[in-house]
């Protein structure tokens, strides 16, 4: 094995060699630079291979042939080797990226780059404090030199600020080092750590200076203006190295300092790190320059790494796994994003929409964002999972909360940016395309997916990339060039086959959810046949969502559950984002879902109490002080997905603005994931008390109120899809109410709703989507009288609303019947009032839907529209048949699950199914008899009317008794606009958008706070130096105050 010292020797030798070459030469010096960077990378790679694969112990390298304390020594272990490989690889790729700039600058710039990379490797390897100072100064000067390579004239200002601040830092560092030497008598880090520096007189203060100076290099919150300016103005390739390699090396140096300082300094590091992480993320909310935003994000990630370093005492051996995961995720994504920024011409966030001209770049961009935010299957996900569990085990909940809050803010502004890329219109010369730069950026994508596989392999919870559904979804990425119809067939058959494969292993409860999600999804996918184009991006997103759902149902451990939960969130986000105006709504959906997901993560972490692999069933045995909190967090997390009141504002926009066949998928199927979560939670944890308040009682009220609010809001909507979206909130409120009743029939009712809601909501969304496609509008008052032109859609909608309103012959009544039997035995009665009021209100918006679209007066411009496309009508007809069958024989689905449920409530309250009548403890219900009787009465009367009016004469549209005058125009005689005006006068006050206002003020608060506080960075170099000095003094006073 070649000694790592050759990395230093090669770097220096190369630089000096370049000095020898004549000025005019370009290609040869460039070739030498690449060769040397290659050699350095190869050495680091071979050492990493030795440590990782052959498990060699970390090796010490002595210089000057004498023992360490008296000479400088290097130590190369797994961490150092991987960091060195990261540095050299990023350096090599950046050199490739900066080919044109380096050619313009000549061999001197190449020499500086070589020394820069060599110095970074020095910072990583060295175990000597003063040697660390020398290498850090080398990095400072090299950075100052390389910053000037940038085409942006403002880089000069950034360079000056950087030098001023680094002068200050070097002064503190030197004073710290010399006094530390005086106190401990050695300059070697390991000896200093052994000498217990805090005890020796004067040593603590010296270490404080050293520690603060190294932290200042990490761009802590108050004193990081200079770092941001460099990110904004430097050459993107250099920024890539600066954020990944310098960031990584300096954080590792800080980690060495912490080894010297010992446990007493960990809280200080954590505090500074978490403040930086949260503040930088909040500031990034209001940035619209792309590189400055990436700067803020890098500063935030380094802050997070510092926090993790501050927790190294409780992380134990998982420390390198967590810190490595976050660092590598940050490094690869930042490098990739900076390289991408080189391809985009302008610097505004919206200018990145130019990426759309190359779908590959969009995929790269999505990969980097997912990697940075820590979505499955990337390393950040595993790292955040372990970090949360260790923090929760130690009871450091406020820290966990802050980290999750910061991560949520970061996800918000990053995916807002992704929304711009997908949705904003692109300038024609927006993309400065160069194949070399694109290849370098794409290499980062490949590394990202390799890391995903590696971290999955290393994680104790099983590799996500081994999950078949996820692989099936990812398979659609390379297949995206196929025609849409072929992919649709593949998707449907995949779903059905997976359902068929797992059919025997499902228990009755899972079977119902699986039936709704997988074959149900396949049924809705039928509607996707009607597109002609390739529909790039639809199938990977859809299959990702279905993969998440499929894995969610069979998840046994909390990790699989949470991974599936995030997968379906991400998949559905990309799906919803495809809608024409869906950008803001998709963003609010994602932020709410991720907020919910992080709550679930916190809940699982607290429940696990440090257990490595926490089974869902173990939720029942969670210790008392935590159980109610775990229940509350998980419940709120699941209820964000079922859009309970308070967290429902994302649903109307997301479901209404999605595409025709996406709305039913998202509304009919995705909401059930939340319900499945609640089911799992209630089965395992049952009733919980928090401060004497029964949590299921609170859920009861939330369910009732969301049922009322959802239905009430639905009445006053003018847009058909928004009406259906709000009605979903109402129906989900019903289901949550049923679950919260905590008795056998309540749960059965919730299951009834899962099936019913899926069938009629998908049907209604499909028909409204078909109508919107034909009429070109979703506003109900502009339609009317379509019954003659679109009869099949009319039938679907009529059957749908009859079922939904709970009128006897159809399956809706079954749900209501079970509901009534359930509330008979419920111990709380007050919420019933609200649910009874919410019931009939459903009539209002259902009638409004069918009246304004199909009945009433046909408008002139709609005279010649045809029936909805065949592929959209077909699923609707299948749903109609399904509704009829389910209405006639509800036992088909419910009988087995009814038996299965008896185990939860000690057998009382279950239904008995003998013969055709279904009877409970209180009442009975014979669906077949009802259907037959009503059918007979109806047919007799209908035949009688037909016989009497056999000569009835169909009349034209305006032939109505209009008290003698002739109706002027269809618009004036079609009563549709502001349909329930009197109702608004009576109960309108209930629909004040209080929740929307609340959430808007929260986000407005964050944005204005960020906007005001960021003025803190005035741009003046000296002010930044004063900030740094202030930071040092503040930490000093806090530290002095803290010391006993």
């Amino acid at each position, binding site marked *: 094995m070649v000694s790592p010292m050759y990395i230093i020797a090669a770097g220096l030798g190369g630089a000096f060699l370049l000095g020898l070459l004549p000025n005019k030469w370009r290609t040869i010096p460039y070739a030498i630079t690449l060769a040397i960077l290659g050699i350095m990378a190869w050495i680091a790679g071979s050492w990493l291979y030795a440590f990782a694969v052959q498990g060699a112990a970390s090796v010490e390298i002595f210089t000057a042939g004498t023992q360490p304390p008296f000479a400088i020594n290097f130590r190369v272990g797994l961490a150092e080797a991987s960091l060195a490989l990261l540095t050299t690889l990023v350096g090599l790729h950046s050199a490739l990226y900066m080919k044109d700039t380096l050619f313009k600058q000549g061999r001197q710039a190449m020499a500086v780059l070589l020394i820069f990379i060599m110095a970074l490797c020095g910072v990583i390897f060295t175990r000597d404090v003063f040697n660390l100072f020398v290498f850090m100064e080398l990095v400072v000067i090299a950075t100052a030199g390389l910053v000037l390579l940038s085409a942006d004239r403002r880089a000069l200002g950034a360079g000056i600020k950087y030098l001023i601040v680094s002068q200050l830092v070097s002064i503190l560092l030197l004073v710290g080092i010399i006094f530390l030497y005086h106190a401990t008598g050695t300059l070697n880090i390991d000896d200093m750590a052994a000498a217990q520096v805090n005890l020796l007189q004067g040593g603590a203060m010296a270490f404080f200076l050293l520690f603060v100076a190294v932290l200042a290099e990490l761009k802590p919150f108050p004193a990081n203006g200079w770092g941001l300016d460099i990110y904004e103005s430097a050459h993107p390739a250099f920024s890539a190295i600066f954020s990944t390699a310098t960031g990584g090396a300096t954080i590792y140096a800080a980690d060495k300092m912490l080894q010297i300082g010992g446990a007493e300094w960990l809280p200080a590091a954590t505090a500074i790190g978490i403040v930086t992480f949260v503040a930088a993320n909040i500031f990034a909310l209001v940035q619209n320059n792309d590189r400055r935003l990436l700067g803020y994000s890098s500063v935030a990630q380094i802050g997070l790494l510092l926090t993790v370093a501050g927790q190294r005492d409780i992380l134990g051996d998982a420390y390198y796994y967590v810190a490595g995961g976050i660092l590598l995720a940050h490094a690869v994504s930042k490098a990739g994003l900076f390289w991408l920024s080189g391809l985009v011409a302008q610097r505004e966030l919206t200018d990145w929409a130019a990426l759309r001209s190359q779908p590959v770049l969009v995929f790269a961009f999505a990969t980097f964002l997912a990697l940075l935010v820590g979505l499955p299957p990337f390393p950040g996900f595993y790292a955040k999972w372990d970090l949360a569990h260790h923090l929760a085990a130690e009871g450091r909940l406020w820290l966990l909360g802050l980290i999750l809050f910061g991560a949520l803010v970061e996800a918000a502004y990053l995916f807002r940016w992704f929304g711009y890329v997908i949705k904003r219109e692109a300038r024609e010369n927006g993309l400065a395309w160069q194949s070399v730069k694109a290849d370098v950026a794409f290499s980062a994508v490949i590394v990202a997916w390799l890391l995903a596989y590696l971290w999955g392999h290393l994680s104790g919870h099983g590799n996500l990339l081994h999950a078949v559904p996820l692989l099936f979804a990812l398979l659609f990425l390379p297949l995206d060039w196929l025609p849409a119809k072929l992919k649709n067939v593949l998707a449907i058959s995949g779903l059905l086959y997976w359902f068929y494969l797992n059919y025997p292993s499902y228990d009755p409860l899972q079977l119902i959810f699986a039936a709704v999600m997988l074959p149900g999804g396949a049924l809705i996918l039928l509607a996707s046949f009607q597109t002609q184009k390739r529909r790039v991006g639809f199938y990977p997103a859809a299959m990702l969502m279905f993969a998440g759902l499929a894995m969610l149902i069979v998840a046994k451990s909390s990790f699989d559950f949470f991974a599936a939960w995030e997968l379906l969130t991400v998949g559905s986000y990309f799906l919803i984002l495809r809608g024409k105006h869906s950008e803001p709504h998709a963003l609010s959906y994602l932020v709410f879902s991720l907020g919910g997901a992080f709550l679930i993560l916190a809940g699982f972490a607290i429940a696990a109490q440090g257990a490595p692999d926490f089974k869902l069933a173990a939720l029942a045995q969670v210790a008392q002080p935590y159980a109610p909190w775990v229940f509350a967090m998980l419940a709120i997390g699941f209820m964000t997905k079922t859009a309970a009141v308070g967290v429902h504002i994302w649903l109307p926009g997301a479901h209404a603005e999605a595409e025709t066949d996406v709305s039913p998928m998202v509304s009919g199927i995705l909401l059930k994931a939340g319900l499945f979560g609640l089911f799992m939670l209630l089965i395992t944890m049952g009733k919980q008390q928090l401060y004497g308040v029964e949590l299921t009682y609170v859920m009861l009220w939330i369910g009732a109120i969301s049922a009322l609010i959802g239905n009430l809001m639905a009445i006053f909507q003018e847009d058909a899809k928004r009406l259906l979206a709000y009605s979903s909130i109402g129906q989900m409120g019903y289901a949550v109410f049923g679950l919260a009743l905590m008795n056998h029939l309540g749960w059965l009712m919730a299951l009834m709703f899962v099936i019913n809601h899926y069938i009629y909501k998908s049907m209604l969304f499909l028909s409204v989507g078909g109508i919107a496609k034909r009429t070109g509008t979703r506003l109900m008052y502009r339609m009317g*009288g379509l019954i*003659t032109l679109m009869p099949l859609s009319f039938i679907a909608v*009529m059957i749908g609303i*009859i079922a939904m*309103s*709970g*009128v*006897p*012959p159809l399956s809706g009544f079954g749900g*209501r*019947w079970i509901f*009534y039997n359930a*509330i*008979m035995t419920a111990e709380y*009665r*007050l919420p*019933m*009032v609200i649910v*009874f*009021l919410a*019931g009939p209100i459903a*009539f*209002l918006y259902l*009638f409004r839907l069918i*009246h304004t679209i199909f*009945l009433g007066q046909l408008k002139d411009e709609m005279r010649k529209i045809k029936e909805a496309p065949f592929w959209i009508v077909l699923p609707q007809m299948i749903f109609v048949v399904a509704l009829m069958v389910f209405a006639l024989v509800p036992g088909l689905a419910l009988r087995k699950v009814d038996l299965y449920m008896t185990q939860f409530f000690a057998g009382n309250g279950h239904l008995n199914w003998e*013969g*055709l*009548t279904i009877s409970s403890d*209180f*009442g*009975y*219900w*014979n669906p*077949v008899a*009802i259907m037959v*009787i*009503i059918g007979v*009465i*109806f047919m007799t*009367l*209908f035949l009688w*009317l037909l016989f*009497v*009016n056999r*000569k*009835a*004469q169909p*009349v034209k549209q305006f*032939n*109505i*008794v*209009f008290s003698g005058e002739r109706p002027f125009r269809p618009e004036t*005689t*079609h*009563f549709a606009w502001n349909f329930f005006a*009197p*109702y608004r*006068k*009576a109960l309108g006050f209930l629909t004040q958008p209080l929740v929307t206002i609340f959430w808007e003020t929260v986000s407005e608060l964050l944005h204005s706070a960020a906007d005001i506080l960021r003025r803190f960075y005035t741009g003046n170099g000296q002010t930044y130096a004063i900030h740094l000095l202030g930071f040092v003094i503040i930490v000093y006073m806090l530290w002095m105050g803290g010391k006993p």
Partner: protein
Amino acid sequence: MMEALVEFNWMRIPWALLTVFIVFNYGFLMTALIQKIAARVGRRHGIPIWQNYIDLIKNYALRTSITHGVMFYLGPVFRLSGGVGLLLFVPTIYGSDMFSNFSFAGDLILALYFVFFGTLGMALGAAESGHPYSAIGITRGLSQMTAAELPFALAVFAVALQYQTLSITDIVAAQQGGVLNWTLFTNPFAVAAAMMSFLGSMMRPPFDVVLAPQEIPIGPPTEYHSSFLAMMQTNRALFPIAKIVVYMNLFFGGAASWPVLFLKVFLIYMVSAFVGVVFPRFRVEQSIRWFLIWAVPLGILAVVLV
């Protein structure tokens, strides 16, 4: 499936038809009588008792009839089958197997929700007529109905909790033996709430903004005529009786024989007529507020106290 058909007692059908015939005629006569009483209160002579029969014959005799489309056609069919269905699903005479009609098919909740079947069908039919007044009428009807239904649902819930059953025959059985153990006396709040909601659903003056004869000439059925109107008028006679039968069974001890039924139905109908002649018409938001302020607290009280 087949064995259910075999043990189904086929004699029920003729008995059910007999019930319908009796109630049909009684309805025609009684509604005309109530109209006459209301007229007499207004110092008018009022219509002859057999007026409804004349209207029926006239409407069926009309030769010309026009239709605005399929749903328009089905409107009255839905309406009447709703009325007849509601009548048949509820046992009219307690204790006699002949007149318990098809109540084996469903219990109280079936009756409670089947009321909407007719309303929904009527709404669809009237909307198909394309007449704006019918649409306005329907919106008023549905809005008012949501508020009116709430106290009734609470009352029903209270009664069901009190007797711990949802089957109507059991509820009636529990109220036998003397006037004092009618629900009227054992659970007065529930009955008060139910009677208030009863006013709302009977289309009598305080809450007849749905038809509003002067403002939007008879609202939903504006476009209906000849045999369609005939079918609707039969329902207008039949449906109140069916609803009152439900109220009678739940709150007033049911009826052991036909004369008792005729008397109780007349008296209950008189309650709404009695109130109707005195009060002017409410606007929709006023009626909603009235229900929510007055009727619903009573219902809540009933539910909580049971």
